[in-house]
């Protein structure tokens, strides 16, 4: 985190610069079945973030040495498009995207019923088309929906969201400016039914009390986002329009 505690991000009336309250999410839309070549897919916009996810498989796992005799492996790629950020980024994977791909795969493997597909592989391709802070949460949340759209059996849905700290105040869902000058970021991935944690990262500085509050905000947001996930999936399968 930048850790610049001195940039004013919360107005005197307690509102954030974009008018949100401390525990308010940016606007979110979710759409499924958007990529014809994929078995399942999802488009999610979250503030100015845009993520599109394609799911392929289950298919035979290649090369052989990645096969697991008792379950499927998830082959997850988180990729930022070169034009997704203010300064163009070089195409291809870097250490950051590889780490995000790994923790995303592990979070999704915690909800997918991987035991049903021994020796197979499920490919999850997360493309960030526009990035404005919080892309990993956006990608994970959209990936869970795309897996459901692909008909992959899952024991629960997965919602990812982050709370953080700005101007020494805990807030939900940091936007770009808040992230640049923020003091902490606590992204989580929660199973909305069991409330179990499948994904957890954090960096910056949080006291135990701040940590608790951030988790509280996150848990509340999980239910809101989960509703949108369910609506998007229903809307497709009930013949509704998106």
């Amino acid at each position: 985190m930048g850790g610049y505690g001195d940039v004013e991000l919360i107005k005197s009336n307690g509102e954030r610069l974009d008018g949100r309250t401390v525990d308010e999410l940016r606007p979110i839309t979710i759409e499924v079945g958007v990529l014809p070549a994929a078995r399942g897919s999802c488009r999610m916009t979250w503030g100015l973030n845009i993520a599109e996810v394609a799911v392929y498989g289950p298919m035979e796992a290649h090369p052989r040495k990645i096969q697991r005799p008792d379950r499927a492996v998830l082959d997850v790629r988180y990729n930022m498009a070169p034009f997704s950020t203010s300064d163009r980024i070089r195409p291809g994977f870097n250490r950051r995207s590889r780490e995000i791909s790994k923790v995303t795969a592990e979070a999704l493997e915690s909800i997918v019923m991987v035991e049903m597909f021994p020796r197979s592989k499920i490919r999850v391709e997360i493309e960030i088309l526009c990035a404005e802070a919080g892309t990993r949460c956006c990608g994970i949340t959209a990936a869970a929906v795309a897996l459901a759209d692909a008909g992959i059996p899952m024991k629960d849905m997965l919602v990812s969201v982050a709370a953080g700290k700005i101007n020494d105040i805990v807030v939900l869902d940091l936007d770009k400016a808040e992230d640049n000058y923020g003091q902490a970021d606590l992204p989580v991935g929660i199973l909305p039914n069991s409330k179990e944690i499948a994904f957890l990262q954090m960096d910056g500085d949080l006291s135990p009390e701040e940590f608790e509050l951030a988790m509280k905000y996150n848990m509340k947001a999980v239910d809101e986002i989960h509703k949108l996930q369910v609506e998007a999936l229903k809307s497709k399968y009930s013949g509704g329009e998106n």
Partner: protein
Amino acid sequence: MVKIVPRLLKDQLAKLAEEDLRIDERGRFERRKIHMEVDVLSNAEGSSKVVWGGTIVYAGVKFALREPYSDRPADGALMTSAELRPVANLKYEPGPPSPESIELGRVVDRGIRESGCIEMASLCVVPGESVWNVNLDIHVMSDKGNIFDACALAGIAALKTATVPANRFDVGEDHKLPVNKIPIMCSYQKVGGRFVYDPCEEEELGGNERVHITLGDDGHVHSLQKGLKGTFSTAEFAEIFANAGEQAEELRKIVEEMVI
């Protein structure tokens, strides 16, 4: 096993060809539906989304300043990239770019570059000191056939809508990127013994050689590429070359209308 499917598919496509039919019921030179949007990516200085049948492509333009090369002190540069990435289809695998991916990128790049649609001198900021580098990145999200044409179309549309962010770089006022021409690529594939326009996924899987033709506003050709195993006669080429002229005109109109 994977190899058996194309054999059967090839037979089916050949049978259809005998009655001059296509697997998705189009005419030989009939195009799939196109839906195009521009200004769809808020962090890009120009952008487009092309939905071409089931093929979906995004294009984004980014600018950066750099010193010019000493032998061309007043010229900027345009770099176009397009890649076959795993998101676009089950058949693409992660890893270093395949020859197919490199060919796509280079053919799309040549079509745009050789048309002269952007004058390199128009990218000069201070001669000998500072010029614009234009990065046109084309992102294929769903490949259901003919991504070459979809990439070329998304690319020129993104350029046509691009704004040079001079203000952000402290070198003057923002202004439209000057784009003089609208090069259009038209791709044909030999399927069941004859060339068809705008091949779909199955036709690409069960087809033979492919020809990519990029035409400029005046009907001049700016780029050609034959891909894949197979041969064709000059008469066959003459036929698709003529057809490409007609297709290009229609597509050029779509771009012009979209980006006014």
